[in-house]
């Protein structure tokens, strides 16, 4: 039985590098100057603005209302589409069993019954066998 517990056999010395990175970042960011915040205009429809920005549309096509300013992301949208398809295809390629015999997959999908029969050397199909013949099962 395993319970969630704090990992103890890790190298904390390497972790100090992460802590040092945080210290440097905090020291720099705490004193960084920023201009006055502008914020979104009142009543701005952000969801619609994001949706139209994704397809390079500058004006709300339904109400004609002005959207929050943004750059266009149509090219990025198409590229991310290709990247996702490539990643999924790559994941399936990596996860596939590397046996030439496709029937292995079918056997495993069968719950292993076929494989079990083969290992036992038993030709008898389970459907044909009597449910309970009082044997030595």
């Amino acid at each position, binding site marked *: 039985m395993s319970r969630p517990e704090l*990992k103890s056999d*890790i*190298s*904390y010395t*390497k*972790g100090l*590098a*992460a*802590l040092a*990175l*945080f210290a440097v*970042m*905090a020291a720099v*960011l*705490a004193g*960084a100057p*920023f201009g006055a*915040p*502008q*914020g*979104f*205009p009142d009543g701005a429809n*952000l969801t619609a*603005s*994001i949706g139209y*920005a*994704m397809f390079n549309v500058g004006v709300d096509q339904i109400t004609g209302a002005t*959207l*929050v*300013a*943004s*750059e266009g*992301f149509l090219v*990025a*949208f198409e590229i*991310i589409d290709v*990247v*996702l398809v*490539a*990643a*999924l295809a*790559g*994941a*399936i*390629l*990596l*996860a596939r069993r590397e046996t030439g015999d496709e029937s292995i997959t079918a056997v495993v999908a069968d719950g292993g019954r076929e494989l079990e029969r083969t290992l036992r050397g038993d030709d008898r199909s389970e459907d044909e066998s009597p449910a309970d013949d009082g044997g030595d099962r």
Partner: protein
Amino acid sequence: MVPPQWYLLLAAAVFCIGVFGVLTRRNALIFLMSVELMLNAANINLVYFSQYWGNVTGQTFSLFTLALAAAEVAIGIGIILVLYRNFDDVDVTKAVTMRW
């Protein structure tokens, strides 16, 4: 509005937790989670400064970051499956050669 320093500190903390995980842990699945933390630290900044400057470019871009993270995890899980099949373990320090 909350000052930007707090959001930057939060994002830096989340990012450094991710770096800490990558540096100290050896489980490949924890690696994936840590990389997700680092990506989401960037998202925090993108969304906050989108609001700060009144421009939705950052929020839209964070959506693309999420999609890219999904692609990265898909490939990462595939690699971990191969790692487990070849080494019977998901310890990243065991795979030290390019070929075996």
